[in-house]
Every structure is written in structure tokens, then in C-alpha cells.
């Protein structure tokens, strides 16, 4: 067998190390970053300093507009745990996910409703992101893709997953590629029932959600959620709509990273959402969780070099639909945090045997829970509450927060909470880390 670590990853490691050495200045050892980013991103060399929270405008709260909220997380800072900046983009666009360009100088944030993309400069002053560009031609550029979701950095490129389309607001969609400068490059449609686009597998649905790559194996994975009609719909109305419930993704697609050609479509029922590749140089596998069926899935390369998918654990009691949402893998590939929305609980799985994950810890964080981000050393975790504007809970359970915790290997200890309703901000969604050290070396 060939040595599993190819040149590409080696280069990535060397590169990351170089940054660490040159920028390790005053903040301390080069050991911190969130663990769920593109391998092409430079690492933060020390404690993360700022959290960028892409926040949905909420009717009746503040200016009711989507905004990027910056929170100071520098221990010892006078404004630790406080909002230090916010940039309102005007209007509600169903703010959802966001990601850095591969140079980590710009932060792209999408609106799932009207497909707007907002680009923030996060390098000029990492404590005060600036809105520098708006792309309002995503649908037109892409040939009818709606709902820019994941923003994933590839070299010089932004790979964006769409969730829907402009013909029927259903789930048929595509991956859309832009240059870092915001120029459209290409649209890659997800294989569907009519056209497998050369991929193998037991049928496809054309649905889309997350995208992640494993460069040393030249593979890219995409998952599948649902179209605009469902993700924009009142959650209660949807659960009671038999026709709508038939419109969820049941597939994970394996692509050739370099050619962007789909290779194999796996059947993964119940809306597989976030994808996380393991980091280890011999770890040729990724995890995803199926939201509706509450199952943890492993996508892995078997001994014969074939890619396979299998369900490896239940998450909570699937009969109660706990709705696993965001997940976060530890940098040593030994642990996976899984948030379940309905019971507001963070669950830690031991994944050291990826074929036999076991839940080892859980803690209720709030009435509802969606996103989780952890530092590279796994010692700090941050949680937010909002899933989608019309899926969040009603009434008092509609808590909107960012909560910070530390993890000592045994338990989560609460550090601070920012109440996004009291602060007139809105519904808190994806978090990304920032630090001045990234740009000083």
C-alpha cells in the first residue's frame, strides 16, 4: 500500500507550521483554531480573540436586520464576553452559514432566502469587520441556484453549496464556485434521479447541504438537506405536511476534488447535514449526522480502497426526533460534539473507534441549540441557538444566545452568555474565530 499521506497534505502541514512559527508572538503557543475549517486555511497561532457571529434579523428585535456581530473572547480583556462590534447588512436574508477565503482575509456570509452574499474584510481590523462587497447575482451567475449555504475555502476559490433552485424552490441544487475576488467560475449540479452525471450508486436526489474536502485523497463530499420551501417554512406546519416531509435529502455524494466530477452517491436517509473529515494523516474517513433519523454516519475508505457509508450510532432517542444539527470534531479525532436542537443538549461522542462511537457526556445548554465551535486544543467551546428563522422554537423557549464554556476533559464549565434578544441583535447562528496574530506575521 502507498503511504497514505500524500504530498498535498504534507505541504499543508508544513505551511501551517511555518505560519505558527513566524506569528507565535506575544500570545503563546501555536495551538488554537476551530477544528472544522478547510485544510487550506491558515491557523490562528494562539487563543482566538474574536468570535464573528452571523446573526439573523428578527422581527420585533432591534433593527430587525441580519448582522455580523463581533464578540471579544480575549481572556482578561475589559470587554471579554461582550459585543464589541456589529455590522447590519439591512433587511432579512435568512442569514445562515459563512466562511473565510483561503487567505483568511475575507469572510463570506450568505442569505438562504434571497441568495445575497455579503463579504466582510476581517483583516484590516479583526476586531471590527467591514462590509466591503455584496454579491446579488448568485442566482443569475449560477444558472438558477438558490440559497448559498456552506462557504468553503479552496485555493483561490470559494466553493459554495446551494440548497435550492429558482425554478421551483425544491431541493434540486448545485455547488457553485467563485474566485476569491467574487467572480463566478462554475456550477456543479448534484447528481439527481434523472442524471447521475457519471456517478455510481443506488439513485440520487439532487439535494445539497455541506461540502468538505480531503485533498490527499482527492475527494470532496457533499450532503443533502431540503429546498427553500421547506427550510423557509414554519417548522410545525412542515412536520404536519406529509407532502413536504417527503422532500428531504437522502444522499451523500463523493466527488473527485480536482475534476469536480461526482463519483459515487451514498444512500444516507433522513437529511445528512454537516460533514467533518478526520484530521489524522491515516484517517480516511468523515462523519455526518442525519437530522431526521438521528443517526451518526461514517463515510470511510475500506481496505479495498472503496468508499463506503454506514450508520455507526444513534444520537439520543431517534423516536423523539432530537434533531442533531451542528457537529464539531476534536483535532485529535477522538471526540465529536453533537448538538441536538429539540432538547438543547450538547452531546460528546468518543469516536476513537470510528466504527463504534459511544456517547460519553451530555449537557443541556439551553431551550434550543444549534451551532457549536471548539478551539483547536478542545478546551473552549462556544454554542449558539438559532436553526432557521421559522424553525426556531416559539414563545419563551425561543432563547437566542451565544454561550461560552471551557472543557476540562470531564465537564463543561460556563464562562459567559450573550443574550442576543436582550442585546437587540436577533437570532445567533454560525460562529467563526478571528485573531490579530493572523495578519501581524
Amino acid at each position, binding site marked *: 500500500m502507498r503511504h497514505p499521506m500524500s504530498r498535498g497534505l504534507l505541504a499543508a502541514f508544513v505551511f501551517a507550521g511555518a505560519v505558527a512559527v513566524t506569528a507565535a508572538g506575544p500570545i503563546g503557543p501555536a495551538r488554537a483554531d476551530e477544528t472544522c475549517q478547510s485544510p487550506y486555511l491558515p491557523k490562528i497561532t494562539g487563543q482566538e480573540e474574536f468570535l464573528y457571529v452571523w446573526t439573523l434579523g428578527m422581527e420585533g428585535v432591534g433593527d430587525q436586520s441580519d448582522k455580523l456581530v463581533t464578540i471579544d473572547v480575549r481572556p482578561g480583556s475589559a470587554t471579554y464576553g461582550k459585543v464589541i462590534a456589529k455590522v447590519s447588512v439591512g433587511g432579512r436574508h435568512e442569514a445562515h452559514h459563512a466562511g473565510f477565503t483561503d487567505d483568511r482575509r475575507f469572510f463570506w456570509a450568505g442569505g438562504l432566502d434571497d441568495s445575497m452574499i455579503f463579504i466582510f474584510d476581517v483583516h484590516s481590523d479583526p476586531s471590527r469587520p467591514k462590509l466591503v462587497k455584496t454579491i446579488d447575482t448568485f442566482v443569475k451567475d449560477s444558472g438558477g441556484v438558490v440559497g448559498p449555504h456552506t462557504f468553503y475555502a479552496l485555493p483561490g476559490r470559494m466553493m459554495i453549496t446551494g440548497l435550492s433552485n429558482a425554478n421551483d424552490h425544491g431541493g434540486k441544487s448545485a455547488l457553485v464556485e467563485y474566485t476569491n475576488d467574487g467572480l463566478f467560475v462554475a456550477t456543479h449540479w448534484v447528481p439527481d434521479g434523472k442524471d447521475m452525471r457519471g456517478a455510481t450508486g443506488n439513485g440520487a436526489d439532487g439535494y445539497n447541504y455541506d461540502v468538505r474536502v480531503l485533498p490527499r485523497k482527492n475527494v470532496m463530499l457533499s450532503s443533502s438537506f431540503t429546498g427553500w420551501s421547506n427550510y423557509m417554512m414554519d417548522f410545525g406546519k412542515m412536520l*404536519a405536511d406529509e407532502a413536504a416531509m417527503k422532500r428531504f435529502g437522502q444522499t451523500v455524494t463523493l466527488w473527485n476534488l480536482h475534476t469536480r466530477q461526482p463519483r459515487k452517491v451514498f444512500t444516507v436517509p433522513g437529511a445528512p447535514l454537516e460533514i467533518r473529515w478526520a484530521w489524522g494523516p491515516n484517517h480516511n474517513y468523515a462523519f455526518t449526522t442525519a437530522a431526521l433519523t438521528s443517526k451518526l454516519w461514517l463515510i470511510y475508505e475500506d481496505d479495498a480502497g472503496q468508499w463506503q457509508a454506514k450508520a455507526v450510532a444513534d444520537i439520543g432517542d431517534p423516536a423523539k426526533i432530537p434533531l442533531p444539527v451542528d457537529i464539531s470534531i476534536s483535532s485529535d479525532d477522538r471526540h465529536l460534539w453533537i448538538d441536538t436542537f429539540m432538547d438543547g443538549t450538547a452531546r460528546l461522542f468518543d469516536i476513537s473507534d470510528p466504527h463504534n462511537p459511544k456517547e460519553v457526556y451530555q449537557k443541556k445548554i439551553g431551550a434550543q441549540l444549534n451551532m457549536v465551535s471548539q478551539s483547536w486544543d478542545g478546551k473552549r467551546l462556544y454554542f449558539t441557538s438559532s436553526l432557521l428563522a421559522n424553525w426556531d422554537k416559539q414563545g419563551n423557549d425561543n432563547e437566542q444566545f451565544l454561550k461560552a464554556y471551557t472543557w476540562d476533559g470531564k465537564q463543561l464549565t460556563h464562562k459567559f452568555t450573550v443574550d442576543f434578544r436582550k442585546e437587540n441583535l436577533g437570532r445567533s447562528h454560525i460562529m467563526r474565530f478571528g485573531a490579530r496574530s493572523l495578519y501581524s506575521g
Partner: protein
Amino acid sequence: MTGLSNRRARIGRLLAFLLTLAAAMAIASAAANGADDHDRRAVARIAAPPLGLPPVPVPADNPVTAEKVALGRKLFMDRRLSRNSTMSCAMCHIPEQGFTNNELKTPVGVEGRSLRRNAPTILNVAYARAMFHDARDDFLETQVFGPLLARVEMANPSVGAVLATIRGLDDYAGLFERAFGGPANAHTLGQALATYQRTVLAANTPFDRWYYGGDQDAISPRAAAGFELFTGKAGCSACHLVGEESALFTDHGLHDTGVGYARETASDESVMVEIAPGVSVPVARAVIRSVGLPPEKDLGRLEVTDDPDDLYKYRTPSLRNVALTAPYMHDGSLQTLTDVVRFYDRGGVPHDGLDPLIEPLGLRDDEVAALVAFLESLTGEAIDDLIADARSVGVGG
């Protein structure tokens, strides 16, 4: 059958004449104004509707022209006509989904806001004497302001705002002038949209070719048995009328079949939710309520008339193309045609206001299947042409 074939010959001659006339008119006007093939065929459909449909009622002050069809189609497909450029008429009346939405019981509008009723098809809407499930509007020309202004649909703040949007779009420059001799206003906006919708005709179905066209083999024996039941033992044609020369399968009336009553009085503790193909779990109502707004009530025709006798009365829909327009009933509560036939077989939902024409039918399984086969024989030919026609313009932005 002689009566039938005489009639056919008569209709045939009339059609041929109208067709030639229409084609001549269309070509003349098209040559002048750049209307395309789709527009010409649409005008021809109005002049000579496909077999099984009666003449198309067209208001005297809004004759059909190729220019109006082209403009109306463009407006119908254009997402920029909604407050945030996400919703067009076609987002709820989707061409590929029978000009309705097969993926939702009831649609969602701007920002995902909930609608409480199923979207009716636009196919053959030209013949609707009253619009909406509760028959609250009577002209296609005026109906359009409902969706354009409804907060839950396209959410425009005013008619003026819609007109300003259109004036601001370069690709509409001159189109209203060409079609109506003047700029866009509320009147011509309604007329353009109505004109396009009027041309979305689909018939010459296997049933039509069998019943009106005399082609014995056009439908299966099972579908023919279904028609016997439809007009006989099952009593369907008392409300879904079948005429001598044409059929719209509706009495244009309103009836209480029990669908509305059943929904408003439902008290089940849980709902079965399909979490993966073939896998369903019960979800407590309390859980569903925790993640959604309370559903809006729907009292049917009573909301329009305030007459207690109109409680839960809804319009009899046409059954043409019904195989393409699932889910069914005003709230989309029945998913398949078999569900619908079984619903009638049970006698609807018995309660005080139930229409006396609805009663248990005692159908055997093969009779249920026959009725379904008959309903499936009502799909018009050339649906693909109507889809291509709709998709001949962009979706705007």
C-alpha cells in the same frame, strides 16, 4: 354514436375555421411585434381549445393578443414581482408540477410565511367562474392583486410599488406600450397576467378522445368502468359535471364534503411524521406546537358571506389534469387519488352540514381502482408544450 359523430364534424369545421382565422391574426400581429411561436400557439389555443373544452370565455375589453400573452407570461414567471425578488406566481403554480405545487399541502410565500390553502392549478383556469376555494373573486383580471399584495404571498406594499418595480426594470421597456398602447397600470397589469393564464389550456385527454372523439381504444376498459361509476353508482358527476359536448367536471358551486370540518375539529394527540422514506414516527401535537405558529382557521365560504349555512363550503374544482395536481382538496390533506376515492367511499366526513349528495358508496377495491384509472385518463395532451411555453422566459434575477 351518430349524434356524437355529427357533433364532432360540426365542431371540427368550426375549429378549422377559427384556427385559420386565429393563426392569420396571430401571424399578422406577431410579424409586427416580434411575438414568437409560443405566443402564436397560445393565441391559437384560445381560438380553438383542445377537444373536450368549451369555447373560452374572454372579456370583451381584453381580447387575447400574442403581445399580451408574451407580457403576461413574463410577468407570471418573474420573481422580481415580489417584495424581495424570491416569489413569482410560478413559484406556487409551478409549470412542471401541474401548475400547482406537488411538494406542499399548502404553499409558503415571502420569507416562508404560511398559506392555509392548497394552490389550485392554472391549467384551464380560463373557465373558472369564481376564483379561489371560497369563490371570493370573479375575474382573472382582478384576482392577481390578491397574491401580489398578500403579506404571506408576494408581500408587495402597494399596487403602486408593483408598478414602480416594473417601470424600473429595463427588460419591460416598451412591452406594455406594445401590448396595450400605454404604460403599465393596475388595469393592464391585471389584463396581461389574465391573458397568459387564459391560454394555459390542457385537454384532448384519453377520456376526451374516447368520449367526445369516438376513439374506442383511447382509454382502458378499467378507466371506462370508472367512468360508469363516476356517472352512476358513485354519483360523482352530480357535482363534477360532464356535458354533452364538453366537460369541465365542475358545477361551479360550493359544497361541504367534510374536509374543512374534519380539519378544524381534529383532536388527535399526535401526528405521524415521515423521517425517512417509509419510516414514520408519531410526534406529539405539543412538540409540533413548540416549533410553529398556531395554524390559521379556515371556515370556507362563510368567511366571505357571513352566512352560517356556508360553513366549510368550498368550490367544486375541475378534475381535468387531476393526476398532475396532488395533493388534493382545499387544504392538500389527501395525498393520492386513491385517498380521495376512499374518502368519498367512506361518505366524506359525516357531520351536520355534510352535503346530502355525499354518502357512503360501498365500493369494492376494483371499483376504487377503476375510478382512479378514470381520473388518470383526464390528463391533457401537450402538457410538455405548456411547460416549454412557460419556460421560454427567465425567472427574473
